[in-house]
């Protein structure tokens, strides 16, 4: 097979994240491209979670889709949740010991979900028990592989010479072994992956290797390796295996981050944890610098202390998601008023309010564009994939310092938690641009000199003496309410929008994917990029040729380019693709260009947009529908 789609399910806390990491590493080691997403509840232990993974022999995957080739379940709940995610001819690996488990016994399943699963079971004529479901699936063309996880653990314990209870700790490796067996993954790759994860604790390495090998063999002996992937043809010699949080975190570090403040929040925290881990920037015993990472008392302190650090000259940022950003907007305005290079990394999750804390959305675009009272320039950049996120993290700092504006780097939970095999960034594309930041200066300086739109910025500690205030101020940074100063200073700041618009190429702010022959256009942003491009590829195979316009920078908005592209299509052939209900990017387009995009493919269940549902949605939209709501995913 050219590619494989795998779903691994188990309860929160049961180890499937590690399993997925090992499986992904092994696949990458063996030459495949990998993309995986993790879905989980806002819960520490007990609720259902799963990994949805795509491995490809021919490319680095950029989207996920259903159905999958394999569901490997650690518990009964995963089977009840996902049995209908498997394709005909696909496989289900489950724990035969749980055959008698009844749906109604799964207390961790929310009543709404349980009721629906119940209906589904009825529909396919399955009984309430797991065993009966496995049987019914066979009838539907899904091959159920019931292993006795208990016996596996027993024989594993015996072989390793450890107690059975201790052996249970390794239980999650069963699904890794099963997947490896079905995929025909070579053991060297698996061992490499396990060493990579547990290398510093050889006993764990050894145990995991043994258990996965054992299960892989058992599975192979039962069914062979029916999901064997084609020989890989990707041709990378090394790949990073990173989440979106990691990619941004690394980008910031390369970009010169020296101060990161945060208050814990899903799905942003992991980025700051990476910074904590690398705070000493130690390479072979030598330190390349030091990053201060401060866990603050709240997000208000996070943003404001980051502004303080920026005033002192550090590249400073804070990372958060919606609830945290909502608390940061007053600080954002101060930064805008004081022309401070602040970077806020904003991972959108399902809102409003606490919403779906561990699920994704693209519902904060308009908020990030207009947050805080009054008017001031800002930049808002959204990244379409991990590699973009890496570069954009650096770009955000450059824009912030060159134009002395706050920059919001907009990401989402999808990207944050998806783990991908990413090529090493191209160093020739990376520049550090600090604009007119001054580290040496002397005595009192007009911080807000009106003679240029961007005034030289001596940092505090440079030797200059300067003043800042959130009040309207004169060139010295002292308060003044004089109306003429107000007129000019306000406009000086606002003009930076024009300056950015003039200096940053529109082609970097909106990316047009076209072969020139398309008769419809998808307009999307952020993590819709992958599914949109993949959907277009599929649609083209079916004879429907569409182009993609990726909106990347929303402020300064590339209005001319966007206008040009959109007006080259018939109005009823332009479709906005967004993970929200309001078609927010489409609103921004209308605001800047007057083009009202009337066709929308939307999703707001908190789960990613999958390629196959987007394909369907686009077809229906092209056939006349005005609005398609996607909703696949548990």
């Amino acid at each position, binding site marked *: 097979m050219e590619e494989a789609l795998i779903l691994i399910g188990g309860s929160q806390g049961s180890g499937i994240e590690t399993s997925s990491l090992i499986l992904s590493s092994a696949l990458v080691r063996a030459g495949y491209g990998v993309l995986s997403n993790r879905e989980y509840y806002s819960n520490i232990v007990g609720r259902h979670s799963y990994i949805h993974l795509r491995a490809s022999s021919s490319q680095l995957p950029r989207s996920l889709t259903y159905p999958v080739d394999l569901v490997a379940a650690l518990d009964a709940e995963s089977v009840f949740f996902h049995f209908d995610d498997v394709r005909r001819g696909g496989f289900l690996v489950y724990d035969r010991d749980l055959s008698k488990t009844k749906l109604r016994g799964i207390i961790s399943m929310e009543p709404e979900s349980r009721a629906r699963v119940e209906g589904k079971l009825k529909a396919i004529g399955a009984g309430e028990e797991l065993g009966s479901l496995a049987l019914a699936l066979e009838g539907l063309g899904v091959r159920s592989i019931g292993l006795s996880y208990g016996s596996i653990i027993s024989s594993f314990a015996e072989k390793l010479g450890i107690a059975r209870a201790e052996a249970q700790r390794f239980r999650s490796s069963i699904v890794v072994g099963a997947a490896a067996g079905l995929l025909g993954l070579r053991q060297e790759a698996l061992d490499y992956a396990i060493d*990579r994860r547990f290398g510093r604790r050889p006993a764990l390495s050894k145990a995991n290797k043994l258990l996965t090998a054992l299960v892989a063999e058992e599975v192979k002996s039962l069914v062979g390796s029916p999901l064997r992937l084609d020989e890989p043809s990707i041709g990378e*010699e*090394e*790949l990073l295996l990173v989440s979106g949080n990691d990619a941004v975190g690394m980008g910031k570090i390369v970009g010169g981050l020296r101060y990161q403040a945060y208050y814990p929040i899903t799905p942003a925290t992991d980025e700051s944890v990476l910074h904590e881990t690398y705070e000493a920037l130690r390479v072979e015993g030598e330190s390349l610098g030091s990053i201060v990472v401060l866990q603050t008392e709240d997000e208000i302190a996070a943003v404001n202390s980051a502004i303080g650090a920026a005033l002192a000259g550090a590249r400073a940022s804070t990372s958060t998601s919606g609830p945290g950003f909502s608390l940061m907007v007053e600080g954002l305005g101060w930064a805008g008023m004081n022309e401070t290079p602040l970077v806020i990394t904003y991972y959108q999750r399902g809102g409003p309010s606490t919403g779906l804390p561990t699920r994704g959305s693209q519902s904060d675009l308009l908020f990030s564009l207009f947050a805080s009272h009054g008017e001031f320039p800002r930049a808002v950049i959204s990244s379409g994939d991990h590699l973009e996120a890496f570069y954009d993290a650096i770009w955000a700092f450059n824009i912030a310092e060159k134009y002395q504006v706050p920059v919001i780097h907009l990401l989402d939970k999808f990207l944050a938690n998806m783990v991908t095999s990413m090529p090493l960034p191209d160093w020739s594309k*990376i520049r550090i641009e600090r604009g007119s930041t001054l580290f040496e200066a002397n005595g009192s300086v007009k911080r807000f000199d009106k003679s240029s739109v961007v005034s030289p910025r001596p940092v*505090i*500690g440079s030797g200059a003496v300067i003043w800042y205030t*959130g009040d309207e101020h004169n060139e010295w940074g002292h308060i003044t309410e004089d109306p003429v100063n107000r007129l000019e200073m306000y406009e000086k700041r606002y003009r930076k929008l024009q300056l950015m618009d003039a200096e940053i190429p529109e082609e970097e702010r909106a990316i047009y994917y076209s072969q020139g022959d398309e008769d419809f256009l998808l307009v999307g942003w952020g993590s819709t990029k992958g599914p949109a491009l993949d959907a277009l590829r599929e649609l083209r195979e079916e004879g429907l040729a569409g182009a993609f316009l990726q909106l990347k920078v929303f402020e300064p908005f590339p209005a001319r380019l966007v206008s040009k592209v959109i007006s080259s299509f018939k109005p009823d052939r332009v479709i906005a693709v967004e993970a929200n209900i309001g078609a927010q990017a489409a609103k921004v387009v209308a605001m800047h260009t007057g083009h009202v995009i009337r066709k929308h493919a939307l999703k707001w269940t908190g789960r990613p947009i999958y390629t196959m549902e987007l394909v369907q949605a686009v077809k229906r939209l092209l056939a006349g529908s005005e609005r398609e709501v996607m909703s696949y995913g548990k």
Partner: protein
Amino acid sequence: MASRFRTDVWIDWCPGCGDFGIVAAMQKAFAELNIEPEKLAVVSGIGCSGKTPHFIYANGVHTLHGRGIAFATGIKLANPELTVVVSGGDGDLLGIGVAHFVALGRRNLDITVILHNNQVYGLTKGQASPTLKKGDKPKSLPAPNIQDPVNPIALAVSSGYTFVARGYAMWVDHLKELIKAAIAHRGSALVEVLQPCVTYNDLYTGDYYKDRLYKLEEEPGWDPVVRSPAELDEKAARAIVKSMEWGERIPVGVFFVNPLAETYEERIAKRNPGFSITPPARQPISRNGGEPIISKEEFRKLFSDYIIIVRG
């Protein structure tokens, strides 16, 4: 000379406002400590008190209501070589900003906080601030205050400030000495200043304070300094009890000093020694006019845990 720390911005406080004394004391303290204005950052919140930085020749950061400490924290951590002083109102620091006030104490970061305690929200026309006692009715209130006050000294001691003092705005030289000691102290320092607000507060006036204030240093046997770890709890408790004294006699002076506690800077440097060598804000982040300081090869080593060598 204190005049070195003056600016030519007109001070628009009400004639007679205690804030004049506070600024004067700050300027004198800076001068006598020989601080370079260029290496000093005076950070404030919002309120009459919030305007302070504009009247001082030194880097001035007039921030948001209640957030001075948060800004100051970033400045100090990014460049620990700077002297950082926060000047804020009682509403600012103990009301809307109290979370940051407490957090600073818990960190013992080397910042000095000067609290303008006038018992009212000056700039918004005299509403009760968190330090106004229950039942008090200054002329700006339509009815007596119905909330209990917070005690700044007690709160500071229990939050972990390692230098805690109280001064009086009209005793400029005494206040100046307290500010000097606070700045010289390594760690989080609070100087509460009793500050008459002549426009809105007709209860806690100069006259009121005149006969009541006494200096702790003149109190026989008063020793606020923690001289061994064993003394810590007792000295803290004594400071708190002392701070409850408010009536016929009101103490000013130093309530509590703990020179033994590690500063936050030291705590960080333990984990990350690079921090104390070059301040983060002053480290080079690029070379050759734009290349990142971290080369691709170094990136590869730094993040080797994330790299997979493909053997396809």
